[in-house]
C-alpha cells in the first residue's frame, strides 16, 4: 500500500498540494463557518425584518427566562475569565558582557593546558582536539582566577565572580526596565555548581536592599536547563500572586568547578564552559503589557531521570586522584535525542498547527494498525515557530538538534554564533541567543520563539514565547559591538 505522502518532495506540484492541504486543515473551522454564516444571512435577508420580529414574538419569552439566560451567560463568562491563567509578560532581560580582561583566546587556553597537564601529553592532545572542533571563538571569557597557571580557585574568588556577573546583569536590567529594587516581589536565582551559604539570592537581596517580604528562591544542582525551570517556577508563583514582578537570574560560576585532573571524560567541560549570566524581569501586571517584549505561552518540562543510563550520563564525581569533575558519558547525544523526543511529544499538540497534527496522527495510526514499516512522520516545527534558541551546549548538540528537527542554517544561526562568541554559558546561553536574534532585527510582533535546554538528570525543558512588540535595532546588549561581524563561518576544524 503506498504511503500517504509520496517521497519526491522536490516536485513543485507537490509543494502546492502541501500548501493547499495545510491551509485547508489549519483553517477548517473558518472554512466551515463561512458557508454556514452566508447561508444564515441569506435566509435572514430572505425572510425580511417583519418575519424575524414575528419569529421572536412566537418564542413567548417572559422576563424571568430572559433574566435567567442573561445571568447564565454572565456567570459562565465570569467563571471563564476568573479561571483563565494570568498572562505572564517578559518585560525585558539583560545579559552579562564579560570584560576584556577575562578574554581567553585558543592559543592561550592551549598553552595553559600544556603547562598544567605537562605530565599527561595524551590529555593535552585530547583537549587540543576538542578545542579545534568545539565551535568556540577567540573572544570567550574565563574568570580571573582561572587565568593562573595552575588555576587558584578560592571561595573568595568564586564569590567575586558571582558578584561581578550577577550584579552587572542586574544593574543592566534595572537600567533597561526602570525597575526599582523595592518593587521586586519574587526573586529566583539559579546557579548549578556554586552554592555558598548564604545563598546567591541572599547575596542579591543584600546588595540591592530588597524588601523583607520578598519571596526568594535559590535553585542549585539543576544543570544547564535550570534557567527554564526558574521561568516555570516564576510563572507558577505569578499565578498565585497578583500584580507582581519577578526577577530571574540565571548564571553558572566557573571558578570553583575548573577540573584540575587529567581524566579525559572530565576535561570536556573545561573546554566548553565560559563566563556568562542573564537577569530576566517577568510580570503579570496588565500595565506592563504595552512595553513587554514577550509573552510566555508554554513551558514543558521532561525528566528522564527514571532511566538509569540517563541519570548517569552527566555525573559529578571524583577521579582516581581525588579531583572532582563532571564526567560526560559517550552516549550523551543519544540520550539527549531521546529526551528531546519526549519533550516534543508533549509540546507538539500544544503548538503545532492542525495540519501537522493530523498528519502525525494518521501516520501514527497507520504505523500501529496497517504497516509498522512506515517512516514515522516528524512534524515540521518550522511552521509552529519563527525562531529557535537551542542551548549552546556544544557543537554536537546543535548539530544533533538541527538534524532531528530538520532546521535550516538560519534557524540554528543564533545558537552557533552564541557558542562562538560566548562559549557554553550554561543556563544563560538561551538569553544570549535571543539577544542575537533581536540584535539582527529579526524579531517582529507575533513571532513565536522556542527555547530548548538540556541539563544533567537528564532533563529536556522548553519554553515558548510570543513576541509582543517588534523590537527595533540597535539594541543595547552583549552583542552591540560585534553583531556586525556575525554571522561568521565556523570551520569544521580550527587550525591552532
Amino acid at each position, binding site marked *: 500500500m503506498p504511503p500517504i505522502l509520496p517521497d519526491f518532495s522536490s516536485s513543485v506540484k507537490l509543494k502546492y498540494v502541501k500548501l493547499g492541504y495545510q491551509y485547508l486543515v489549519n483553517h477548517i473551522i473558518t472554512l466551515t463557518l463561512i458557508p454556514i454564516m452566508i447561508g444564515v444571512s441569506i435566509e435572514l435577508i430572505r425572510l425580511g425584518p417583519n418575519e424575524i420580529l414575528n419569529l421572536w414574538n412566537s418564542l413567548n419569552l417572559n422576563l424571568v427566562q430572559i433574566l435567567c439566560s442573561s445571568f447564565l451567560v454572565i456567570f459562565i463568562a465570569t467563571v471563564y475569565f476568573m479561571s483563565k491563567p494570568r498572562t505572564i509578560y517578559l518585560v525585558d532581560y539583560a545579559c552579562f558582557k564579560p570584560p*576584556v*580582561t577575562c*578574554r*581567553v*583566546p*585558543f*592559543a*592561550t587556553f*592551549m*598553552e*595553559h593546558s*600544556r603547562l598544567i597537564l605537562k605530565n599527561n601529553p595524551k590529555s593535552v592532545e585530547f583537549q587540543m582536539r576538542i578545542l579545534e572542533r568545539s565551535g568556540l*571563538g*577567540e*573572544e570567550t571569557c574565563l574568570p*580571573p582566577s582561572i*587565568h*593562573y*597557571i595552575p588555576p*587558584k580557585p578560592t571561595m573568595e574568588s568564586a564569590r567575586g565572580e558571582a558578584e561581578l556577573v550577577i550584579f552587572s546583569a542586574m544593574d543592566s536590567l534595572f537600567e533597561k526596565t526602570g525597575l526599582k529594587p523595592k518593587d521586586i516581589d519574587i526573586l529566583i536565582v539559579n546557579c548549578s555548581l556554586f552554592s555558598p551559604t548564604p545563598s546567591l539570592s541572599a547575596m542579591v537581596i543584600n546588595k540591592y536592599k530588597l524588601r523583607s517580604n520578598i519571596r526568594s528562591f535559590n535553585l542549585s544542582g539543576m544543570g544547564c536547563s535550570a534557567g527554564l525551570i526558574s521561568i516555570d517556577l516564576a510563572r507558577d508563583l505569578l499565578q498565585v500572586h497578583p500584580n507582581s514582578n519577578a526577577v530571574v537570574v540565571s548564571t553558572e560560576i566557573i571558578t570553583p568547578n575548573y577540573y584540575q585532573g587529567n581524566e579525559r571524560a572530565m576535561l570536556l567541560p573545561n573546554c566548553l564552559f565560559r563566563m556568562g549570566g542573564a537577569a530576566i524581569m517577568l510580570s503579570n501586571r496588565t500595565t506592563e503589557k504595552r512595553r513587554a517584549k514577550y509573552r510566555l505561552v508554554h513551558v514543558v518540562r521532561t525528566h528522564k531521570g527514571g532511566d538509569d543510563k540517563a541519570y548517569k550520563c552527566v555525573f559529578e564525581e571524583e577521579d582516581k586522584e581525588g579531583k572532582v569533575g563532571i564526567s560526560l558519558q559517550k552516549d550523551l547525544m543519544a540520550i539527549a535525542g531521546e529526551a528531546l523526543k519526549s519533550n516534543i511529544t508533549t509540546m507538539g499538540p500544544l503548538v503545532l498547527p492542525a495540519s501537522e497534527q493530523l498528519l502525525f496522527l494518521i501516520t501514527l495510526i497507520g504505523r500501529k494498525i496497517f504497516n509498522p514499516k512506515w517512516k514515522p512522520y516528524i512534524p515540521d516545527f518550522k511552521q509552529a515557530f519563527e525562531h529557535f534558541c537551542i542551548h549552546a551546549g556544544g557543537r554536537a548538540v546543535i548539530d544533533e538538534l538541527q538534524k532531528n528537527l530538520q532546521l535550516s542554517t538560519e534557524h540554528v544561526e543564533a545558537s552557533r554564533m552564541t557558542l562562538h562568541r560566548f562559549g557554553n554559558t550554561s543556563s544563560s546561553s538561551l538569553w544570549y541567543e535571543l539577544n542575537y536574534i533581536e540584535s539582527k532585527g529579526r524579531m517582529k510582533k507575533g513571532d513565536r520563539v522556542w527555547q530548548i535546554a538540556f541539563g544533567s538528570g537528564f532533563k529536556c525543558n522548553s519554553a515558548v514565547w510570543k513576541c509582543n512588540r517588534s523590537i527595533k535595532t540597535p539594541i543595547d546588549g552583549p552583542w552591540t559591538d560585534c553583531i556586525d561581524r556575525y554571522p561568521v563561518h565556523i570551520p569544521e576544524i580550527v587550525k*591552532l
Partner: protein
Amino acid sequence: MGSLPNLETPPQISRISTVVPATPRGEENSAYNLNYMDLLMKLHYIRSIYLFNSKAVQNLSISDLKAPMFQLLDSYSHVSGRVRISESGRPFIKCNDAGVRIAESHCEKTLREWLDEKEYSVDELVYDHVLGPDLAFSPLVFVKFTFFKCGGLSVGLSWAHILGDAFSARNFITKWSHTLAGQAPPKSLHMPNLTKPQFLSNSVYDNPISIKRATTIEEYWLAATDSYVATHTFHITSKQLHHLLTTSTSTNININTKTKYFEIISAMIWKCIGQIRGNFGPRVVTICTTNISNRAENEFPTNGSVLSKIETSLSPGESEISELVKLIAEKKMNENHGLEKMMEEGEGKDDFIVYGAKLTFVDLEEGNFYGVKINGQKPILANCDFRGVGDQGVVLVLSGPEDYNGNNGRMVTISLPGKELDQLKCKLSFSCKLQPWNFLRESEQRGDTTTATTITTTSTTVSVTMATTNIATTTTFVLR
C-alpha cells in the same frame, strides 16, 4: 649566563598568569616576518628592571597593573604571538594572541634591604625566561611584578631580542605606564624611520666579524658558552664622570646633560680588560649603537642596531684612554650590510650570537629608562642587562638615576666570565656598599647639608669624599 633556566622549582614562589590583547587579531594579520637583524639577535634576551618606592605605588593592586596591558597589546600584535618555523626553516612570528606572561611575587624584604643586599642586580627581579623547548608555546615577553614589604614595587621585563632592541623594550614599558596613568593607548604604531647608514665607505660587505656561529643548548634558544658568564653593574656618578673626562682627555669640554660618555667609558673599560687579558687583550671589538634617530615612543618594536667593528694593532692595555676614544669615535666600520648578506645566504636558518662574540660595547645612553612613571613618580632605579651573551663580554652603558643636583651619572652593566669580572671589579675599585646618590637624596629630604666635598688626586687614584652633617662617604676610582 649560559645555563638553562631552572624549570622544576622556581626560585621564588610566583603566581603566573597570561595577559592577552583585548581584541582578536583576525586571520589576515596572522604572520609577522622577521628581518635579518631580528634573526641575528634571536638567541639574546633583554632584561630590565624599574624599581618604584611606596610613594609611587600607592597600593596599586595586581589587577590595576595588569589591566592596561590588555589594551596596550592591541597595538603590539606580534609581542603576544609565538615563534613558528616555516617550511623553509626560517622562523617567523604567528600573531595568535597567545599573550604575554605575567608573574607576581611578594618579597619579605623592604626595598632598601633588597638594594643593600642585591645592589643593582637584575637577576631575581625578572623571570628566568628563554624560548624553548616548545618554541610554539614559549612566550616572547615575561613581565614580573615583585611587591616589597614596604609597599615598593619592582617591574621586571624579560624581552626576547627577536622582537626588538632595548629601546623597543623600554618603549613597551613606557607605553604601559602611560596607559596605567589613564592615557588611551595608541591605535597603531608606526614603523620607525631607518636613516640610511651615513658612511658608506666605512661599511663592510663581506665576512663580518661581529657575530659568531653558536650552538644552542638542547632545544632552547640559548647559546652554549665555554665559561660561566656573570654580570655586575657599576654606578658612575656625574662628578666621577667629569673627572674621567678631564683627566683622560686633553681638551676642556663643556659638560652639560647632553654630553655622551659612552666613548670614554667604553675606552676605559676596554683598557682595563686589555690589561686583564694581557697579550690576548681584545684588538677587535664590536660597537653597537642605534641607527634610528629619535626613538619615539609610538614606534613599532624593531631591531634598529648598527653593529660596527673596530680593528686595531695597538694593544689596548698599554694605550692611552684618549687614543682608544679616538678609535671608537672615528675608526668604526659598519658591518650591517655584510651581516645582512650573510644572514640571507643562510636563509635565516643559522644560529648566531652577536653580543659577546667579540667584546661588545652597547650604547644605551639615549634610552630614557627613567621616563617610565607610576603615579607621576620616576623609578628610584632602572637597570638593564642581556641574557644569553657570549664569553668575550658585553658592556652596556645606560644613564643612571638623578642625583641631588639633577645630574645623571651612568650605569655600566658588564657581563664577563666570572674570573675576569672579579679582576675588573678590583681594578675599578668602586665602593659598592654605600650608594651615595641614594643616600644623598634621602639626606636632602632630611634637611642635611653637604658640608664638604674634597677631591684628592694622586698619580694613580682619584678620591672623592662627600660629607654631610651625619656621615661622610668616599668613593675612589683607580686608574693605572
